[in-house]
């Protein structure tokens, strides 16, 4: 499986990462090596096998729909880089 530098750039965009131009070939090379490694999967016959997302096939446990937590907004926002009046600040999105 070979991928091109532009494929990797497209994946980086999806992942919200920027890869500097001078590193794109190296990143593509290592990315390709990982894909070559995982290509081994295609040799396994998986016809009719149910995908496994939880090792014990556990059902999601539900809780009673009751309020158990108190509002701690100020406390929980302490690690935020920028807040104002309880809101997270980001660059202007709409002109």
């Amino acid at each position, binding site marked *: 499986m070979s991928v091109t530098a532009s494929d990797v750039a497209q994946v980086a965009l999806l*992942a919200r990462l920027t890869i500097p131009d001078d590193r794109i070939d190296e990143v593509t090379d290592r*990315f390709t090596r990982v894909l070559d490694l995982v290509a081994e999967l295609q040799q*396994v016959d998986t016809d009719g096998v149910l995908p496994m997302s939880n090792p014990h096939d556990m059902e999601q446990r539900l809780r009673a729909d009751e309020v158990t937590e108190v509002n701690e907004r100020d406390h929980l926002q302490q690690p935020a880089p920028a807040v104002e009046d309880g809101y997270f600040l*980001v660059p202007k999105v709409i002109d």
Partner: protein
Amino acid sequence: MPDINLATATAAEVLGALNNRDISSVELTQAYLSRVDALNGHLNAVITVDHEGALTAAKDADDARHRGEGGILNGVPLLHKDIFCTSGLRTTCASRMLENFTPPYDATVVSKLKAAGAVTLGKTNMDEFAMGSSNETSYFGPAHNPWDLSCVPGGSSGGSAAAVAAGLAPLSTGTDTGGSIRQPASLCGITGLKPTYGRVSRFGIIAFASSLDQAGPMTRTVEDAALMLNAMCGLDPHDSTSADMPVPNFHDALRGDLKGLRIGLPKQYFSELLDVRVANRIQDALKELEAEGATLVDVDLPHTQEGIATYYVIAPAEASANLARYDGVRFGHRCDDPTDLMDLYARSRSEGFGSEVQRRILVGTYALSAGFYDAYFKKAQQVRRIISNDFKQAFDQCDLIAGPSAPGVAFSVGAKSHDPIAMYMEDVYTLSVNLAGLPGLSLPAGLINGLPIGLQLIGRAFDEATLLKAGHRFQLRTDHHRLAPPFGEIS
């Protein structure tokens, strides 16, 4: 100090001294903090030391003991891997992304160990976001192996393993997504247990791959691991994947012999690819278990090799989803002067994450993206079930499975860091165990040219008790776990 050699002391020994009033927790904590201060410059095993918090907690433990109170680890010093959120104490996950992150709450493991009376000395070094097998992806630089400072301690819980091996604390926590407790335990000559998926709450553990991550004890002895597991584990309403299963007294479960115990040896673990010196140590260890009454049987784990490919799709895919939360908005690193929201996201993430983390996010994003999901992620989840079924079939013929914890001993810093595939092979014996959600235990099994190697025992789901009993019997017969690196004596 009374007769406690901190370089080799176990938690059980330390507890005995505390309970006999031979020493106070404050004295003990000061002594361990002094060792951390004296030795960590060489080891880089600890990222953050909490002198003040530790001494306060030690005083509280002493007061509780005077009142006749206190939990099962009352006053015992401990280090946490820097992946566990600790309220008010910086938690970096060894990443620039979280260099200045102080969590507003404790992980369940942290609050449970606090409630048991353990005293947190600080936070240990690790691979960035637990992605690595050598501790070299840490933003804070690699931790070093106390058996040979030019070598890696393994990873990702490398700082925890190095710290226990060097006697900076008798206990440390680790997490294991593909071998991150067992492989560094093997490379540093300590005992490391990855419990069954769901045994220990993941709440407040910075997520890597949520269907694989599990926290466990890293200790000198199996006895200490049993004590610590009881203090850490159990159903947690804050983690819907934590298991509603009975929790035995693991310390009581150490009693008894191994008569009738069947130990399975997968032929795939003992192929010609295995270093013959490692194979010999494992064979020696198996003879000890036989002498305890266990019988050895051959079993088949035919998809061991494909386990690597399966893991390196599922783990990065889950990681790419989990690490999407680091967007520079709510917590973690934010770039300077973003021009727009996209620039804020992309630059904060590219500056905050190291290269291995970015590589795994890219692979995971690719495996989950439109057009590739079926060929990669779904396919890997199908093979995961086949691997899990292989283990179930093997456990029809045996009660435990044995093999090496790692393909070899500790390697030099830098030896594999430029070759991601070579590094991924470090976990060939451990990662299938995470895919199947089973418990795995690494036990010191001797030295090769002065460097430790570990025996891995794998158990049935939720049967840590049998695993710990076998490990304890092994340690009653052997001295490997009592060996300490010469480095620890320097202080």
